[in-house]
């Protein structure tokens, strides 16, 4: 399901400021990679370019050797967990997770029962069973983080991108989630 990701001399310019300058990187399928750097060093920009949220000013991003610049966001099938999670605050936890499945075109969309089955499966996976009817404002930060993760996993992404996924959590929760994420990755 996962693909190899290759960055070739990727560059991004914001006016006169070079946010990303000629980054090349090869990531094998199934590999877990972390980008480290001080704030403002372009980590988020790089992730956003891989997700297709930001246009690239130079170089190529390839998924399994296919240039992504021609792929739409939908076709890239990327799971993206945002720094602030960006959960839909007017939707329950279950609706948040189901969103990516519900917006598929009719012939690709699983049936309603299949969707609810997959949502409860994901809720089990992120250990949030029983919270499906809650709204994002009614759960804790660590729980929101896991909802965001489940929502990104629901579309069966080929690549999962996490932008400072533990930045807003306290040390204890962060440690638990990090371990949990490693186990999930295996």
């Amino acid at each position, binding site marked *: 399901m996962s693909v190899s990701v290759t960055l070739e001399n990727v560059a991004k310019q914001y006016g006169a400021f070079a946010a990303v300058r000629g980054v090349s990187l090869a990531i094998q399928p199934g590999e877990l990679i972390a980008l480290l750097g001080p704030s403002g060093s372009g980590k988020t920009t790089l992730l956003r370019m891989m997700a297709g949220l930001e246009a690239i000013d130079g170089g190529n991003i390839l998924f399994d050797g296919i240039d992504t610049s021609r792929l739409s*966001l939908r076709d890239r*099938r990327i799971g993206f967990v945002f720094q602030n999670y*960006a959960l*839909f*605050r*007017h939707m329950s936890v279950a609706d948040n997770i189901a*969103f990516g499945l519900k917006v598929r075109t009719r012939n690709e969309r699983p049936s309603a029962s299949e969707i609810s089955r997959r949502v409860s499966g994901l809720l089990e996976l992120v250990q949030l069973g029983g919270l499906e009817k809650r709204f994002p*404002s009614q759960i804790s930060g660590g729980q929101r983080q896991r909802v965001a993760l489940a929502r990104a996993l*629901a579309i069966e992404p080929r690549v999962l991108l996490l932008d400072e996924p533990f930045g807003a959590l306290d040390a204890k929760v962060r440690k638990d989630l990090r371990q949990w994420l490693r186990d999930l990755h295996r």
Partner: protein
Amino acid sequence: MQSLGNNDEEAALTLGASGWQTFVKITLPNVKWSLLYGVLLCNARAMGEFGAVAVVSGKIRGLTTTMPLHIEILYNEYMSAAAFAVASLLALLALVTLAMKTWLEWRFADEIAARSGH
């Protein structure tokens, strides 16, 4: 909408939603109370419009008058009873609008609280 940012929209797009789906399912629900509030205030403003309508529209009875203009016309024709009837109606509508505005503000406060807790 600007203060809300476009984080939610970006999240919806990465999940595979089309532009239209994103607008209907994410953007509109996020702004619906503010939007309704704006419509209500705009409606209140329009209901009480006097000067601009009088000057621009030529105030033709039954066609291009507003309620305040209609009250003036009736009053000038010494139809006090009719004038006061319409005036009472206008006052009533104002009260209804005020009630709706208060209710919306109360609803809206909940939304804001939910948002800052997010």
